[in-house]
């Protein structure tokens, strides 16, 4: 029973921390100047692509991102690859900073950004997905519901 309380406690702290971080992130995003890369794609083509590959990320949608914001310029959408970490980190700081945001999970060694198995080697896109619902990579092998909420 004591264990259950501890687990519940962790979940509560996690939820509070997530809320807090969420509020923080909103404020930070206001301050971030996202410089949109120059593109050779026409505005109509961009909006067409946006319909074909819609974003599932409310925060990114609110900020009015289109394809080139994250992917950079391209000619053929088929050549576009999932983002590399450094592309995400252009706005999100460095990997350490991201890990700090979930450092309340360190104690149980399940910080997804600095975990027991993968340390800082996981790709952001392994969990956080733009065009499909996000997933929890840890759940490929673990009962993650005990540790954390859904992936933002």
């Amino acid at each position: 029973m004591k264990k259950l309380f501890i687990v519940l406690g962790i979940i509560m702290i996690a939820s509070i921390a997530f809320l807090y971080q969420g509020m923080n992130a909103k404020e930070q995003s206001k301050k971030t100047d996202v410089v949109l890369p120059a593109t050779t794609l026409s505005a109509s083509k961009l909006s067409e692509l946006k319909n074909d590959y819609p974003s599932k990320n409310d925060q990114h949608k609110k900020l009015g991102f289109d394809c080139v914001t994250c992917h950079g310029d391209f000619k053929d959408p088929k050549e576009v690859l999932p983002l590399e970490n450094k592309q995400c980190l252009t706005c999100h700081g460095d990997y350490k900073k991201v890990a700090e945001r979930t450092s309340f999970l360190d104690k149980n060694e399940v910080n997804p950004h600095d975990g027991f198995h993968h340390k800082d080697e996981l790709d952001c896109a392994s969990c956080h997905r733009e065009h499909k619902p996000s997933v929890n990579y840890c759940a490929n092998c673990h009962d993650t519901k005990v540790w954390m909420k859904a992936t933002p």
Partner: protein
Amino acid sequence: MDRRTFIKTGAITATAAALSVSSIAPFVDAEENTDTEFDEVFDIIVVGSGLAGTTSAITAAEHGNKVLVVDKMNILGGTSLISGLNFSCVGSDEQKARGIKDTPELMAEDMRKVSEDYGDPELSLTVARMTTRFYHFLKDRGVVFKEFKQLGGHSVARAVWAGGGAFVIRPLHAYARENLADRLTMRKRCKVDDIVFENGRAVGLKVRENYYFDFDDPQNDDKKNKTGTVKYIGAKKGIVFASGGYCRDKKLLGAEADILEETNSDANPGARSGTMQMLMSHGAQAVNLSLFRLAYPIPTEDLMWGMLINPDGKRFVNEFGNRNTIGMTILKEKKKFDGKAPLLIYDQTGADNFHDKQRFQLSMEAKNGYEGTMYKFQTLKEVAKYFGYDPRVLQKAVDEYNAALDSGVDQEFGKDFSQMNGAALRKAPFYAMRLTPKCTYTPGGVRITKEAQMINSATGETFEGLFAAGEATGGVHGAMRLTACSVPDCGAFGLISGDNVSAMKPVKLKMKS
């Protein structure tokens, strides 16, 4: 090769043609071509970045070769990175310090005891003989062993433990980055589609770079995933396949034994049979594919302290038995109840009796893999409520179990109650979990010689330029790989393949101009 294996291999090879990404006909060298122009050329390519591949690659690079390691996954390290990696080792400093007498022959004998006479005894002995060298290989390259253990099935204490796979793979990869950067390249998201042969010798690979494993549809990844850009990479001396097992490949497991589809697995999500089937399409002999090794979040030998009941509250198995027998019985029971797993319950005395307290603790902290979490309860009523049992049904099961324990004889299932050391279902708190066996290791795979050369089933000869090591191979362990014997296997054939591919005479290869 016996007839049964031949038929099995033939049948799977036929499917392989249908499944393989590049649709190669069986036994035909699809890329037979004397003048392939390669995008890149290395001395040696190693497929797979787990313990076997890493060992082979480091060994080959230390012999002075230019080596490329490719791995299809989004992260390097394979299943090794997420495994416990207990290492059975003959002649460790830990054994010497304790004056433990051990020999490779004794270790090989222990391995053969659980093999049910499947597999090749010569390969087990080769593994045991290489353990001392591998121990020093690891220690000299930054691996620190923290614990020394006596594990089940071993006639002497011989297992050393570094703290888990991360404490073995990370130091080795760091060592490679720091000391072999000029010779050893590791490339993730690089999937092997085919082998390039020239005059019967394997001289390169057709790969796809920027391969994104399909985590949304992993069962069909080998067949349907079209991501990546095709590239041809040459290997002047040869190729080592350390491409792992197929624990997550429910189609192949199910084809070998229907019931295995009910298993869980927390091996590397990429542990599937695509690469093996490609090898088979070129005639590589695969052996022992029907064999499987079942495991549990907690050690098999600690199941005995508890009681296992089905969703009806009935016992159905002797909890004190071998891993595969208990496992198969659970899987059949699970199937009877529409996939609902049985419940395992301990009392405090049972929990205190655990041989491996670390794994018990991991289960309590929900860190013991998929469906590997154990929960603690003050009363049996709480257990019943949490797991959806009628409290009276659970109480009855517990009472009957305790009464049987008191009588000293398990009339129903023949459990040896004399070994229980006080464990019953009396002393609160109680610990309980649903128990589904996991497929954690596949003993089958491509057949190799003790020199780690891959064998061609069509000719019975070895392939020139093709080697294999680790879980990708078959026949090293037989029916039930002894605990802590995968590390020495990866090590032995990693070292041997690294040495032997290095000794190959290089062929001249053409680069794309």
